[in-house]
């Protein structure tokens, strides 16, 4: 993988307005999630007894209003954003590691091992996976760690398929042959020669996985089996807001808007990266 290819990709990406907008929005959201809570005077579980369920901009200090219990919505949304982002990135990493290892190995070994490994992926593919994630999270304690393990454990299938396809063609290349002739073992070839050359599609697919994971996490938290009160996540904030939407629509609008913006940004960036790294696919 020469520097030229990456530089070309970077130039194509820089010319893609939607992708750059996505990148900027993501940067801003990440900064807000990390630093934002420090800049607001309220803690996420702190109750302002004077101001319960105030709409946005109505009271000094509560920019985006408060919820039914008088908790500042801006702080809670920023915390929710932080939790959702952290879980999404961690779960994507879990999925990435399993998927790349599984796919690269299957593609490199070929033959019966490959057939067996991919058959296993096919069977899992046909299952209603979301429901297994639900069972896992409910049954093994509702918390951030269970959540990310459960999502990661079922999220690696597509990654494994993509990586296997690439690995199958990579292993026929001269540099792999050279490594075999040079006496390198299977593990070394897969780690040093196959995986680095998979980076392009892996980056693209990982970027497109993150928003899906964010949606699954929020979905579970919305159902009440993900992140639990008083900890905020975008999903449980939206669930709260949906219950109060008749009288306090901002409680729904603020976290929902934040979630949609986040997912939009990731999808735009992912699409842009795909076009930049794989220009054939147009």
């Amino acid at each position, binding site marked *: 993988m020469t520097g030229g290819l990456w530089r070309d990709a970077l130039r194509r990406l820089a010319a893609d307005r939607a992708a750059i907008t996505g990148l900027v929005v993501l940067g801003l959201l990440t900064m807000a999630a990390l630093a934002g809570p420090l800049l607001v005077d309220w803690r996420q579980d702190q109750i302002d007894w004077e101001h319960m369920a105030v709409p946005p901009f109505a009271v000094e200090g509560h920019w985006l209003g408060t919820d039914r219990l008088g908790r500042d919505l801006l702080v809670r949304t920023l915390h929710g954003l932080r939790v959702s982002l952290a879980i999404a990135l961690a779960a994507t990493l879990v999925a990435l590691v399993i998927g790349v290892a599984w796919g690269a190995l299957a593609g490199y070994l070929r033959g019966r091992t490959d057939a067996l490994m991919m058959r296993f992926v096919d069977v899992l593919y046909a299952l*209603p996976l979301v429901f*297994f994630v639900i*069972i896992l999270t409910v*049954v*093994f304690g509702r918390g951030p760690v269970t959540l990310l393990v459960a999502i990661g454990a079922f999220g690696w299938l597509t990654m494994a398929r993509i990586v296997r396809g690439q690995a199958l063609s990579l292993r026929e290349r001269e540099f792999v042959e050279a490594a075999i002739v040079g006496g390198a073992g299977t593990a070394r070839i897969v780690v040093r020669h196959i995986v680095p050359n998979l980076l392009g599609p892996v980056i693209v697919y990982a970027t497109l996985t993150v928003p899906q994971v964010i949606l699954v996490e929020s979905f579970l938290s919305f159902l009440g089996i993900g992140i639990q009160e008083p900890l905020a996540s975008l999903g449980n904030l939206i669930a709260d807001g*949906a219950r109060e939407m008749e009288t306090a629509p901002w409680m729904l609008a603020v976290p929902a808007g934040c979630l949609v913006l986040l997912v939009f940004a990731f999808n735009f960036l992912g699409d842009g990266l795909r076009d930049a790294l794989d220009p054939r696919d147009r």
Partner: protein
Amino acid sequence: MLAFIARRLLVAIPTLAVVVALSFALTRAAPGGPFDEEQALPPEIRANLEAAYGLDQPAHRQFVRYVAGLLRGDFGPSFRFRDFTVTELIAGGLPVSLTIGLAALTLALAVGIPLGAGAALARGRFLDRLVMGLAVAGISVPVFVIAPFFALVFGIWLRWLPVAGWEPGRATDLVLPVATLALPVIAYVARLTRGSLLEVLRAPWIRAARARGLPQRAVLLRHALPAALLPVVSYLGPAAAAVLAGSLVVETIFGLPGIGRHLVQGALNRDYTLVMGMVIVYAVFMILLNLLADLAYAWLDPRIRHGRRA
């Protein structure tokens, strides 16, 4: 064709076996049991309860018993809804869930395919950009945001449709839930159709059809569209999964008496048999839709239809 169906159904058996085994293992490996309550039961009562439901037996014996029941079409008794079998609970809600699920899928195909095809034909022009914008929105805005939003706008502000509720035979109850479920699938289907139709229109056999002097309509409807629909057909399985997951949310928000609530509530209550029954029903639904997709695929693809590869 019959042999094809039989073979696909045969392939479904190991998948179902994995579903049963995995859900059994997951529920049994969990800490806590169905009879853990706030107030601990007296040990004798607890022992009697566990004996009555067969929970005092070793796990492999329970598994054999459960599978034997399944083969007779018996999902076993619910651990939490006393006096109800899982079969009764599921049968009670299935018609509602099935109605909204299938209606949403049908709507998604009926709207998504023409939208995508229209966008492909108007490539780069206003319609294309509009459809693609809507498609990205549909993929990025989850069902649990659309549902309360629709309820708020059409139910509370505009008062066009009921916010929630269900009366048998009242079709207006179904409009919002079905539209909510269909929207993300419409977006995806439109995107897929557009992409693959653009690719197909560049194929040499389309140029050949044009060269033979066929009118644009015939080229499009008879030659291009069937081929362009193949990826859409493959998407039917994942689409079904999305609709099923969405129905959990939609049934809650719009207060529909479907089977969606049984899954989450059952898992929370450690109602093993109910949860497993639900997962099996969902898996069967997905397998059937995948079979349907395979059949449609075979029918659309002349290479398979004419038996060169079955």
